[in-house]
């Protein structure tokens, strides 16, 4: 494999039904590239939660997955409302998602905690009114 392989996705914020399609595609790409099932699951679950978050909170955004020999980096960027209290948002069970999202199976306050759970490193940069960028790394 060359030094870095990039996969870029635009996440449609209008369509909850299609949310997660990019993560399914990443899962297939990583399988084709020969990564272990554990690594593939960690990357795809973290990205899937991020995709769902961008659709629920930020009217979509972009996702970049950079694959290196020793690590996989995921960058999720949106121009949504931003996160005013990141520490609170990281608590399991805390959610600002509207009730209709809970009827769709999300909004339990597990999205960001799951992203942290499945990655080796996670950094959130967010500015209220400007947007949020989340950087995650899964070591191979």
């Amino acid at each position: 494999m060359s030094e870095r392989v990039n996969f870029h996705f635009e996440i449609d914020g209008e369509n909850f039904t299609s949310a997660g399609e990019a993560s399914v595609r990443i899962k297939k790409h990583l399988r084709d590239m020969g990564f272990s099932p554990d690594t593939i699951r960690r990357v795809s679950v973290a990205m899937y939660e991020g995709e769902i978050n961008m659709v629920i909170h930020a009217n979509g955004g972009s996702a970049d997955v950079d694959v290196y020999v020793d690590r996989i980096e995921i960058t999720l960027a949106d121009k949504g409302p931003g996160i005013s209290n990141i520490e609170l948002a990281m608590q399991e069970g805390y959610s600002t998602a509207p009730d209709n999202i809970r009827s769709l199976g999300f909004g339990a306050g597990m999205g960001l905690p799951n992203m942290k759970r499945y990655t080796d490193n996670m950094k959130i940069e967010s500015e209220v009114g400007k947007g949020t960028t989340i950087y995650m790394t899964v070591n191979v």
Partner: protein
Amino acid sequence: MKISTIIDLLHARVLCGEDKLDGVVNSACGCDMMSDVLAFVKEQAVLLTGLCNPQVVRTAVMMDMRCIVFVRGKLPPEDVITLAKEAGLVVLATDERMYTACGKLYINGLAGGEVGNE
């Protein structure tokens, strides 16, 4: 537990994946909140749920699950079944309620899974 045994225990109908009923699942998760499912990591698991949207299939795919059981007599729309077919999943439907369906599988030897990725 074989998927065909789950069908017998829950009097379930097969909505897709008829060719994979000899497949084996090692654990089960009964849940309507998909992020809670994503916190659960056992492979070769079966997901029991009353939620009928495409995110159920994507969640099952993310967790390398083999089989989804829709409980309480719910039937997912055709696009959900199509997604499951593409993913190679077995999809079942039972009239049992969530609690009863999980209980029947549990007392017949199918364990729950551990939470977290430790």
